[in-house]
């Protein structure tokens, strides 16, 4: 087993998928010979030929439109959108096409084999056009699945899970972890099934919930709380849609408190769905309101990134308020 960073894990998952199934086709802006601006698709063109890994013209709506058709035909497209911030030109193709293809045709045709990969999130001094976390938009699209890995091991397993899942999946990669997160990743083929949250640490006093790059933030906050003798249950949601409400609800019924952390603006972020659902499911168990520690309702700021981010200190403070509620 080798230590890989998140980019290498993604690259390895793609190699595994392309080796395993010759119907897998990888494309997007600059993904061909160059291997993508982050190099997630390095060497794929070399290994699998230009027909299966190629550059597209610079058009996100075209990339996803093309991918939808390719998926409907029976190939297994893995399309890259260079930055999550640039996925919006493809929004129509995703909302109205990808997600409704199966439904509208009564299951005759579908984009089930499609996976869309895109880097998301802040922390790289990228300002509001290289930092957005748009998962909430996609959580309101029945028919789509949305997945976010927290580390290289998860990234490989979940990406293979996404490619093999018979539903269109938006796979969002936390770009500030691309090189920063390193862990052991088995060389073998393994998939992690979609739709299951993971309890990373058991605890009794409060449940902390996050996904992607923010998981390490709640871990840090939990460590701070531990010094105060607070026992945190830590959950990585992993799948945003459909999400694992049961695991979260069971945890909250045990701890009585739920804190949700995400980078995206708080208003109508995915935290709102979780809070709305959990306060309903766990109403009689809650000892404090479900609390969201999130980005502000502004474009992602360049100069005050540090202040904007829902970091461990904000999380810890909110956690204390919840315990003293």
């Amino acid at each position, binding site marked *: 087993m080798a230590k890989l960073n998140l980019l290498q894990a993604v690259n390895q998952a793609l190699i595994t998928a392309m080796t395993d199934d010759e119907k897998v086709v990888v494309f997007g802006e600059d993904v061909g010979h160059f291997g993508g601006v982050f190099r997630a698709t390095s060497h794929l063109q070399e290994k699998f030929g230009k027909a299966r890994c190629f550059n597209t*013209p610079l*058009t996100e709506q075209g990339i996803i439109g*093309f991918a939808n*058709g*390719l998926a409907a035909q029976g190939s297994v497209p893995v399309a890259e959108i260079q930055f999550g911030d640039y996925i919006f030109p493809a929004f*129509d193709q995703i909302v109205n096409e990808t997600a409704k293809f199966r439904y509208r045709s*009564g299951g*005759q045709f579908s984009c089930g084999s499609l996976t869309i990969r895109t880097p998301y999130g802040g922390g790289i001094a990228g300002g509001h056009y290289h930092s957005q976390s748009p998962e909430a938009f996609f959580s309101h699209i029945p028919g789509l699945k949305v997945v976010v890995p927290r580390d290289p091991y998860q990234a490989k397993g979940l990406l293979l899970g996404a490619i093999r899942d018979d539903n269109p999946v938006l796979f969002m990669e936390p770009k500030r972890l691309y090189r920063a997160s390193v862990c052991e990743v088995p060389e073998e083929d393994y998939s992690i099934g979609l739709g299951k949250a993971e309890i990373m640490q058991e605890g009794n006093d409060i449940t902390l919930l996050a996904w992607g790059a923010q998981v390490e933030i709640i871990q840090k906050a939990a460590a701070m709380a531990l010094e105060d003798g607070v026992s945190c249950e830590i959950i990585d949601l992993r799948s945003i849609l459909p999400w694992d*409400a049961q695991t979260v609800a069971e945890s909250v019924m045990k701890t009585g408190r739920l804190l949700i952390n995400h980078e995206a603006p708080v208003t109508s972020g995915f935290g709102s769905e979780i809070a709305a659902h959990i306060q309903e499911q766990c109403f009689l168990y809650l000892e404090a309101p479900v609390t969201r520690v999130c980005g502000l309702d502004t474009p992602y700021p360049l100069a005050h990134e540090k202040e904007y981010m829902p970091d461990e200190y904000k999380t810890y403070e909110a956690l204390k308020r919840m315990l003293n509620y």
Partner: protein
Amino acid sequence: MNDRNHLGNVSMTHEVRIIENGLLDIPMLAILDADGTVYPQAKEPEINQQLAIKMYHTMLYTRMLDERMVAAQRQGRISFYLASTGEEAAVVGSAAALSADDMIMSQYREHGALAFRGYTSAQFMNQMFSNRLDPNKGRQMPIHYGDKALNFMTISSPLGTQIPQAAGYAYGQKLAGNDALTICYFGEGAASEGDFHAGLNMAAVLNCPVIFFCRNNGYAISTPAEEQFAGDGIASRGIGYGVRTIRVDGNDPLAVYSATVKARELALSASQPVLIEAMTYRLAAHSTSDDPSGYRSKKEEEKWRLKDPIERFKVWLVNKGWLKDEETENYLKEVRSDILNALKTAEKVPVNPISDIVEDVYSEVPWHLKAQREALLEHIKRYPDKYPKTSGEVGK
């Protein structure tokens, strides 16, 4: 970098000359004159009597279907209809040039292509009544046909979305080594969408075997072509993308057929897209929700009625000795009653069961949709009289 697309073949000039309209003058292929005779310089396509009659019948068939269904909509039997009246040659002429393996991605006014492939009146009706016999499970408004068995992609309302999809589908066909391509129909209005641009450019760059077939029928609902674009139709754009392009008289079935045969050959042999622009006219209202008198004159319509593709084709067939006058009447009678019977049968077939409401959103029904369905069925049980169409299904 390969210079081909950058500076390779650029010629030079030293005079500041801005190119105005008119650099391009894309001619229109015409074989049959409006009076049904073949232009002296023109060459008839290789077409046998059987195929010609099949084309003719299909054109007549959709004309009848249009008539009948517009009436059915007025009677309140279906909620919506959209006719292809006047554009039959464009649709059927092109469909006739395809192989049955070719995928058809249509906009919505191309039921002639489906009819050509043998869709029966019953099948059309099942879709229009969104009943449970529709292979699409009645999930969409009338005229959004789709049938995998006939390689006819389920139609989607948002305009233009099928254009880049067709490029992708065709790319997949090529990868799979199929000896088949994709044809993608759309209107000159839809060609204004960004998806058109993306689709044609990608198909050209990625060498996709796809025929882009534009029905330029002069209108997008009320918007006339001159408020839709300022160039030489849609054909001139093909040239801009480096896509092989041909413009045809869309009311001339022989021209459309000839162009599409050639386009198919080229697209498959060279693995490249071809754009066909068929110049035609939407004689019908946009849909049953529309009244064209609000935006165009009867006179203009009359002018185009004189170019009726069916009449024109008929004269040619008769002249060729392939058709007798009374045969048309007999066929029409047959078809009319076939359509009416199918309609009467289909409107009695129930829609899908209510439990179906959460199916096909995902490959399997996930936990939350199961819960939502359960709650819904419980609710209907509690208020059976408020949901009379479905309460019978849920028991008590």
